[in-house]
């Protein structure tokens, strides 16, 4: 037995499957399906499945080869980062300061037995994960995958040339108070694909790059060569 509201619900299966509903409508539909008689729910899911398989077949007509650099970016972030550690060390000092500030929250986390998720994994799993990419003058791309909820990001640099002898790349988190150092990378640390964790974004609005002499500076002494907005 289907009543008129069940029929009306089934009519929404196609728009639902096409993502042609608002977030609110989607939530309402899902609640109604969950509360509907088994047969109605089955019919709804079956229709959704069919529409999605049909549009999957249609996707053959929109197939488009992505640029090659996207492959290294996608794969770099899931690979266990090998080159991350030297640079990470510089960042850990900053991270330590934050951990102290966390107080009770930090203790709560420490008591959990298997807290194995790395910062990077937490960022990738976050609901508000965002990605921003830009090109570095001189070659290569820099990508930041970040989450405001997790207050952290992961920087991936691909095919960026090594800094000249006697200089380092320095990263700066830009905020209302000006640039704040987020670590440096010397020639040894920059590889074909370099990953680093940005553990504390706070209210920074951008990640900027400069080339600094020696082992880095307290504040930028050269013009910014690239800037990725963290918005």
């Amino acid at each position, binding site marked *: 037995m289907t009543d008129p509201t069940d029929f009306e619900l089934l*009519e*929404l299966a*196609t*728009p639902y499957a*096409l*993502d*042609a*509903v*608002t977030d609110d*409508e989607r939530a309402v539909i899902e609640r109604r399906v969950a509360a509907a008689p088994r047969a109605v729910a089955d019919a709804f*899911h079956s229709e959704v*499945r*069919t*529409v*999605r*398989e*049909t*549009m*999957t*077949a*249609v*996707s*053959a*007509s*929109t*197939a*488009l*080869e*992505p*640029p*090659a*650099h*996207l*492959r290294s*970016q*996608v*794969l770099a*972030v*899931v*690979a*266990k980062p090998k080159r991350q550690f030297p640079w990470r060390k510089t960042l850990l000092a900053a991270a330590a300061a934050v951990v102290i500030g966390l107080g009770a929250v930090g203790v709560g986390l420490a008591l959990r037995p298997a807290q194995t998720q790395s910062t990077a*994994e937490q960022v*990738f*799993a976050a609901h508000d*994960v*965002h*990605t*921003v*990419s*830009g*090109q570095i003058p001189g070659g290569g791309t820099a*990508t930041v*995958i970040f989450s405001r909820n997790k207050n952290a990001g992961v920087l991936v640099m691909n095919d960026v040339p090594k800094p000249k002898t006697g200089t380092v790349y320095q990263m700066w988190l830009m905020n209302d108070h000006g640039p704040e150092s987020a670590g440096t990378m010397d020639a040894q640390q920059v590889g074909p694909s370099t990953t680093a964790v940005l553990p504390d974004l706070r209210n920074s609005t951008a990640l900027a790059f400069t080339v600094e002499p020696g082992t880095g500076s307290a504040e930028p002494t050269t013009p910014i060569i690239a800037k*990725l*907005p963290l918005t």
Partner: protein
Amino acid sequence: MTTGRRPLCYGAMTRSPQVDEDLAALLHRVADQDADAFAALYDRTRARVFGLVTRVVCDRGYSEEITQEVYLQVWQNAANFDPDAGSALAWLLTLAHRRAVDRVRAEQAATQRDSRYATATAERAADVVADSAIVREERRQVAECLDSLTDTQRESIELAYYAGLTYSQVSERLSANLATIKSRMRDGLRALRNCLGVP
């Protein structure tokens, strides 16, 4: 048996099940955090994902970002894939489409596109997907099936699926009532399904 339509539907019908079984197996390995399987999955699906996202967001820079987010989501959530609920490729494209539509709607709400994408989109890429005979055949077949819909059916589906409009917005845009739009979408999808031989 739809014998009369057989030649038209040959490509999709004969090829998909085996291919998809492989993708499902890859997804299971990805769920175990197998990076090699992840790379293989990316290579097998990237053109479908990137192409669909690009069609929706109409911006290569956004599309690269969203594609990257989609695969991160796959890496994190591959264990959620349920073969009983649909094919592996459909699962992946559902994630991709949803993210693309979310982005388009967020952009429309904010009505701003800042300059940061200028650099990201400046880079040229090979626009041409590996142009194998199978790919050409699939494209031709889909194009024929899309052509077989009525204009109003096709328009309703395209505005919803590619332009990211909700069915209410589609109804406003086309000055047709909601019931009409819903039935155009449903009938259009059924026709497409039959034409493409989707089980």
